[in-house]
Every structure is written in C-alpha cells, then in structure tokens.
C-alpha cells in the first residue's frame, strides 16, 4: 500500500473521467435523493450471481457489478483487463494490479465531496462531520513546534492544588470543578477567548490564565490571588475573609464570566440571546406549567437556569407533602420512604405537581378570575453541564442549620423522566417503552462533587473531580489525593456536576 497512489489509475484518468466518477458515486455509492436510491436498490446486484451483499464492487471501465467475496469482479477484471473497481459500500477504489485499495488524491477529493453532498439529503440529524486533516499551514506549524505532551492514562496533568488564602476553600473547589469541565477546558485551551476589554480586569482572561496554569504540568499548588481579587472586584457580596457559600460563588462566577464575555455592549441589547460559552454549556430551560383547577387551562413559562436547587428531607418544608392533584407516582407521607433518599427522589419531588392552595390563587386567563391551581416544573431544555445544588443550608426565620441527610447520587443519570416532553407523552397516554432509540440526549455522567464538612458556623469545602473517564481525585485546597469511586459516592454531596454523555453538533 503506497501512500502516493498507484500508477495504474493513469489509464483511467482520461477525457471526462472526473464527471464519470462523480456519477458513479452519486448513483451507486452514496445515493442521496429518492430517485437515485430507487435506482441503486434495483440495479446494485451482482451481474454474475444476482446477490446484493458480498461486498459488491462496480467496474470503473464499464457497467459491471460483481461480488468481491465470490471473486466475480476479479474474474471480470481479468477477462476484460479492466483494472479498477469501486467498492459500493464505502467508495474505496481497488486496483487489481496492485491487489489492494489505492488512495489517489484526486479521486479521494471527489469521493469526499460526493459524500458530503449525499449526506445533506439524508436524515438531517446525522452527524455530518469528517475527520480533521491538517492544512499545509497547520503542518508547518506542527513541524516548527515539535514539543508534544502525551496524555497517558495515569498522567496527572490538569491536577493542581490551590492554596487557601484565608477561608477561600469555597472558591477553590469551584475552580477545581470548572477547570475539569471538559468543554470549558477545551474552549480555553484552544485559545478561543479574544479579549476586547481595555482594562486588566477581565475575568474571562483570568480563567484562561488559570487553565494555562492547571495544564502547564507544574505540580506545585497554584496561588489564585489574582482570581480572588477579580472576584472581590466584580462580586462585592463575596468579598471579605469570612467563609462564603460555594454555590453562591459558582453562580456569581458564571454571572461575571457571562457578563464579561462580550463587553462591547452587544450583550446589553440582547441579554437573552447570548451565545457565550457559559450559556452554551451551563444554561438550561425550566418550564413552569400552572394549571387552573377550574377550566384546566395551562399557562406556561420557560425560564433559563444555571443550576437546580433541590430541597432535602429534614428541612422545615415536608419532603413529600400530600398533594391532592398529584399523579400516582409520588409517595404520600415520609413514612413510605425506604432506604436513603436518592438524587432521583429529589428530582421527582422537584418536578411533582404542586397544589397552590386557596391562599395562593392565580388569575386565570381562561376563567378571568382568581382560581386555585397546580404548578409543575419540568425541564424544557437541558444544559450540557447540569449542576445540582442540594439545599443543605437552611436560613429560615426560626433557625439556621445544616441538613446533613445523606442523599445518594448516581454516577450516570438519565434525565428523561423529568423532561417537559416526557410529561407530555405521559399525559397523552404514550409510555416510555417506545423511547426513540437514537435519543441519548438526556444521559449524564458525574464529573465533579463539592462537599461541605462541618457546621454552618465553621466548615470546610473539598471537592472530588474526575480524570480520564474513571479516575477520581480529592481536592482539599493544596492537597490532591487519589480517591475511589466509593469515596465519591459515599460523600455527603452539596454540589453535583453532571456532564452530558453524548454531544451533538449544532
């Protein structure tokens, strides 16, 4: 197999060969339109035995289809001296003299173009990406910069401790979670932020710098003083040396990053249609349906969210309140709970229909009067990274305390039951059994967990983050240690970060 192609194609490259080759690709290899498909279905059978399987090939010199496996095309090639054939399944060109598939640059180019053309007609949701091949300029760059970093399964690149600058563990654990969010990491490491801010106080630039530090290969702990300073400048409510809430920091950080993304004022005109990386990764849509109990009219609103805050059993609001309008799948009364509460239980509670009671009547557009109603939350659009916040800190009028109830959370999570679309199919009588096999869109994998140890007054934050698919590490400020999956799943859990398993191109 020579990478330079074989010389025997030269006999073929005469007259109108390019057009002829294109026609063959369009009609018999990658049939895009219904017409070509019909023609392909009828005519693509072996001229010797009539079979349609057996790796059918077409002669390039004449109209002949033959099986490869049964050597029918080989016989044809020998007797007619037609040395080239094309594989109708994959489009590869076979040379009978070289006795192997050959890769001619011109022919490959035509093949690629025809394939892309055909795919446009096919099922529109198919992945239409092709493998990356470097351009001349890129090859040049790669040759001039020969230093390479090889990522093996046990290399620790990306792991770095963070010095605690005085109760800053709440910031440190969020930084660990963000620097290990795969899409965010890829974005920053491929240098995608072009800063348009004049001053030195762009938080996005600082994040970029942070990623450079984390992936530099240095193993000594990093001192995030610049980050801390920028946070104090842009989120005043988090300034000071007292212990802050990690969840508040996460939201504040995402907010500042989102605001700094495009400070030219473009955002001010259209804050809801931002296309910054923060929105692309973290923003989901929460659907709220309010159903009037009298006319059953539904009023729907969709709000963006960056995280889902879940109530826990043991708080002053009952976990499973008796809800007269609820669907049969909820459990009424806490005594029915067996086993530890799971994340799914919390999500089920979050998305259950809630009767709003006579003291909270809503003005119904259908009845034109105040009526009792039920409200239900479901997920309209899921973000690529879903962050779940377990509400462990209770700040009610009567008391301030930490709820330490253990909530078990899974490594893999399927959000399908909590989607607005699932609720609709349930209401229409269709059940989840006939799930679209191609819909892997709602499956998530855990990649970071932030934990709080201690009490409301004095506590400490640590985090677990995932590397290399199944290796976990505990990050306790400057100290990074290897952790087992059991350590992670047994931990109390305060902030849970999940990442979509399958990503699709827009």
């Amino acid at each position, binding site marked *: *197999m020579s990478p330079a192609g074989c010389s025997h194609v030269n006999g073929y490259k005469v007259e109108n060969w390019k057009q002829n080759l294109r026609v063959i690709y369009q009609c018999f290899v990658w049939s895009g339109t219904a017409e070509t498909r019909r023609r392909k279905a009828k005519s693509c059978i072996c001229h010797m035995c009539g*079979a349609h399987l057996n790796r059918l090939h077409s002669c390039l010199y004449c109209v002949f289809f033959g099986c490869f496996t049964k050597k029918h095309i080989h016989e044809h090639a020998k007797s007619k001296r037609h040395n080239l054939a094309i594989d109708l399944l994959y489009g590869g060109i076979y040379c009978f003299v070289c006795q192997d598939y050959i890769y001619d640059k011109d022919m490959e180019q035509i093949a690629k173009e025809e394939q892309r053309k055909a795919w446009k007609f096919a099922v529109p949701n198919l992945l239409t990406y092709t493998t990356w091949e470097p351009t001349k300029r890129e090859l040049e760059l790669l040759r001039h910069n020969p230093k390479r970093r090889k990522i093996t399964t046990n290399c620790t690149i990306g792991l770095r401790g963070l010095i605690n600058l005085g109760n800053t563990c709440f910031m440190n654990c969020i930084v660990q979670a963000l620097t290990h969010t795969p899409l965010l990491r890829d974005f920053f490491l491929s240098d995608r932020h072009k800063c348009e801010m004049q001053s030195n106080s762009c938080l996005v630039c600082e994040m970029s710098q942070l990623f450079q530090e984390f992936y530099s290969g240095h193993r000594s702990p990093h001192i995030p003083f610049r980050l801390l300073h920028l946070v104090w400048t842009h989120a005043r409510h988090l300034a000071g040396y007292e212990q802050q809430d990690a969840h508040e920091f996460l939201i504040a950080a995402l907010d500042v990053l989102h605001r700094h993304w495009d400070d030219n004022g473009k955002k001010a005109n259209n804050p809801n249609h931002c296309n910054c990386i923060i929105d692309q990764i973290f923003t989901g849509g929460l659907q709220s349906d309010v159903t009037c109990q009298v006319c059953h009219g539904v009023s729907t609103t969709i709000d963006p969210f960056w995280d889902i805050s879940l109530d826990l059993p043991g708080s002053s609001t009952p976990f499973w309140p008796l809800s007269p309008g609820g669907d049969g799948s909820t459990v009424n009364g806490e005594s029915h709970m067996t086993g530890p509460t799971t994340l799914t239980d919390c999500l089920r509670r979050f998305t259950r229909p809630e009767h709003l009671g006579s003291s909270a009547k809503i003005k119904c557009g259908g009845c034109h009067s105040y009526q009792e109603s039920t409200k239900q939350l479901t997920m309209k659009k899921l973000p690529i990274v879903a962050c779940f916040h377990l509400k462990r800190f209770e700040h009610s009028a009567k008391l301030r305390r930490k709820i330490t109830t253990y909530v078990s959370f899974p490594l893999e999570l399927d959000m399908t039951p909590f989607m607005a679309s699932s609720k609709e199919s349930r209401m229409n009588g269709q059940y989840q059994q006939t799930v679209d096999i191609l819909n892997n869109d709602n499956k998530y994998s855990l990649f970071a967990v932030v934990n709080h140890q201690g009490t409301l007054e004095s506590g400490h934050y640590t985090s677990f983050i995932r590397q290399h698919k199944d290796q976990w590490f505990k990050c306790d400020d400057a100290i990074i240690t290897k952790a087992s999956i059991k350590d992670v799943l047994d931990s109390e859990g305060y902030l849970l970060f999940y990442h979509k398993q399958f990503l699709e191109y827009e």
Partner: protein
Amino acid sequence: MSKDSQMRAAINQKLIEMGERERLKELLRAKLVECGWKDQLKAHCKDVIIEKGLEHVTVEDLVTEVTPKGRALVPDSVKKELLQRIRAFLA
C-alpha cells in the same frame, strides 16, 4: 436464486429505497461506538498491521483477520435492537 435470497433481495431493496438502510447503518454505528466495539476492533486492526508490517499489509489482510472477531464481538443487545427496528419497519 432461492426463495430465501429472493426475499432478502426484496427487503434490501425496500430498505434502500426508503432510506431506512442508511438510518439503520447510522444507528448501528452509534451503538457499536457506545458499547466499545469500535475501540476493540481498532486495537485489533493495529495489532494485525504491526504483525504484517505497515508496508505490506493490505485491506484484504485486515478484512480476513478482523471480520470473524468483529462478528463475534457484537453484543446481543445491539443485535436485538436492530432486529426490532427492522421488524417495526417491515410491519
């Protein structure tokens, strides 16, 4: 052609005409990547190439060596799913 292969040909024709064959191929492709089959076979291909030598190995060598293993390694669940899908289509 036997009745069996006649039926096969007819089914194949219908699948191609309706574009279902392409959809099934994509579904199968996704499933095989998901269950790790693609990675397993890729590793096997690399072994064969190293064994035969990069300069001398042909596509035929790879096909002969890798096909039986590839067929055997397809998980039953994937086979079942595809069959279900085809049955649903033909119904």
